[in-house]
């Protein structure tokens, strides 16, 4: 390679790198805009530099603000959904990931369908039976509704985890005389723990982001953060809505930052939720 083509190649490389960095940074602009709007007062066109005001954040975080109960509701529902989904996905994931059995494709289809059927339509259909069962407008009704996409997602992820799982350690422990429970506790669980954590994070995300299902089943009475956000936005207070959006995504972003490296270790087929 001549010196000149080397220089051109290097410059092209630099440009590509710059392009990539710009694209990535550009992608974060919408979030930055939310931050900007959240601290602005009467921020109308064509103003570029806003009049700063902490009003939105002050009202958002005050004691009697609706955001605290919405946060509590979102967390309670999220924790319940994650707990149940993970609990059932360990055995189911194992069966799906490691065993050959008749009807396996059907089971996979049965799991993928609830994931891909839009929550809007599912919620509309479920609404009526939940009203009859007195689950509508209630916490448990919403939890069950969230489980419809959450469990399949957890099972498919755990299936992938178990597919890469080497049962050799389990066999060894068994031959050494360990009980089934001990095997699970000391061999299996530590091995699947990282995958389980990621599955838990992604399932939490599913529940945390749910708007339509919570709206339809909860009837607007179960006020999670997204319900509150939509209602605040519809009320016209853009500043408040921006502040609330940030409050809403902050916890999951933190969790994502913490778990970012683990996500990359999963095989692609497990990441089904766009």
């Amino acid at each position, binding site marked *: 390679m001549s010196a000149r083509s080397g220089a051109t190649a290097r410059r092209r490389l630099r440009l590509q790198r710059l392009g990539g960095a710009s694209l990535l940074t550009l992608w974060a602009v919408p979030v930055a805009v939310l931050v900007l709007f959240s601290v602005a007062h*009467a921020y109308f066109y064509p103003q570029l530099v806003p009049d700063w005001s902490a009003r939105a954040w002050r009202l958002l975080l005050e004691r*009697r603000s609706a955001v605290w109960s919405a946060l509590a509701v979102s967390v309670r529902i999220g924790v319940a959904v994650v707990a149940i989904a993970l609990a059932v996905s360990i055995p189911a994931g194992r069966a799906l990931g490691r065993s050959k059995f008749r009807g396996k494709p059907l089971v996979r289809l049965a799991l993928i369908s609830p994931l891909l059927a839009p929550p809007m339509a599912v919620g509309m259909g479920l609404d009526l039976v939940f009203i009859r069962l007195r689950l509508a*407008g209630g916490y448990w009704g919403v939890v069950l509704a969230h489980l419809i996409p959450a469990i399949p997602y957890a099972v498919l992820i755990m299936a992938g985890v178990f597919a890469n799982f080497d049962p050799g350690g389990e066999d060894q422990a068994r031959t050494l005389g360990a009980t089934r429970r001990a095997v699970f506790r000391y061999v299996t669980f530590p091995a699947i723990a990282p995958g389980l954590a990621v599955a838990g994070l992604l399932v939490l995300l599913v529940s945390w982001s749910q708007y339509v299902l919570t709206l339809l089943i909860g009837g607007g009475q179960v006020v999670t953060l997204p319900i509150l956000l939509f*209602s605040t936005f519809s009320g016209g207070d853009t500043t408040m809505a921006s502040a609330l959006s940030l409050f809403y995504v902050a916890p999951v972003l933190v969790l994502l930052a913490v778990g970012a490296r683990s996500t990359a270790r999963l095989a692609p087929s497990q990441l089904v939720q766009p």
Partner: protein
Amino acid sequence: MLVVVVLVAAACSTGPIADADIPDPSNWDEVVARARGQTVNLFMWGGSSQINRFVDTVYAPLLEDDFDITLNRVPVADTVDAINTILAELQGGRGRGGSVDLVWVNGENFLTLRQADALLTDWATSIPNARLVDWDSPEVNQDFGLAVNGAESPWGSAQFQFVYDGARTTVEELPHSYVELRNWVEAHPGRFTYPAPPDFHGTRFIKQAFYEVTGGVESWLLGFDETAYDAAAVELWSYLTGIEPFLWRGGTTYPQSLAELNRLFANGEVDFTFTQLPAGIGANIASGVLPATAKPFVFDTGSIGDSHYLAIPNNAAHPHGAMVVANLVLDPELQAAKFDPANGWGDGLAISLSRLEATEQSSIAKVTAGLSDLAVPPDRLQATRLPEVSAEYTIALERDWDFYVRQN
């Protein structure tokens, strides 16, 4: 596995505690006594964070401290959701112990509930503070032309107003009727729009247009006349489709709510917006939703004003508590607080000044005095007030707007 079973078992929880008898407002001490310790589920439109905040910070603490009642404000995206819950629970045989104790309602939603016989009746005229309400006035005892019959108690009142920006439009340029509005719109293409019905404000806007182009509201006051409506509505569609090309975005799209219209107005995309608050837009300016130079006004041809109410479903689990709440909101001090834009709302009064003692009037008078040009003067509002007509007109207008205007 055990965890799952336990959790699932816990899911089969019991419903709210049922309440045995219907409260008797003439025996008010008994009602208050029975209400102690109750949680009242108030279902109200949750789209205004300022109204929500008012209820949470003004009514709720008072109810807790003075009456030992916990007010649970249940926001609904649309009052229709609360109606559906009530109807579905009644249909499902949940005779007592319903989720809804108190619902913020008026107009076609009230009609739906009355038609389904879903409300407690004859109580609103007998509660203690009912003496402060002018129940003889058709503005109170008729809700969209339907007799109230004590099935709902007024909470406040509203009147439709237009809002303009003093920095962009001078007083001389303002239209004062729908006819003048058409001229204005044609002279300023792309600078006006209105929220798409069935948004509340959008519906009211086209209804007022309906009154004006058909020669006045008088023809429509006696119940729903379908033939007359069909014949006359043609005028309205011709008016609305006539101005459509001159609207914002050429009328190809309409904002979905007043909030969106406010956003367009504040950002200078259009020059007018609407409001319902008799105390004016002070609260909106303070919260940064509208620019500081905005001012309200009404057409000379009038605008629709009416009361909004609180109703108690007849399967409410806590009707005693609900009645106490409905009575409390009529208290003169609290009505003044609600009327005062400084508290974030600015809703009109449900009580009549003439029925108040001098001492009771003072707080309200103070608010009125402080309103400035951020509100239309009360006597002008009174003079231009038009009544609502039967809710069936609303349903017909919304349905036909969708067909004749939106889809074309």
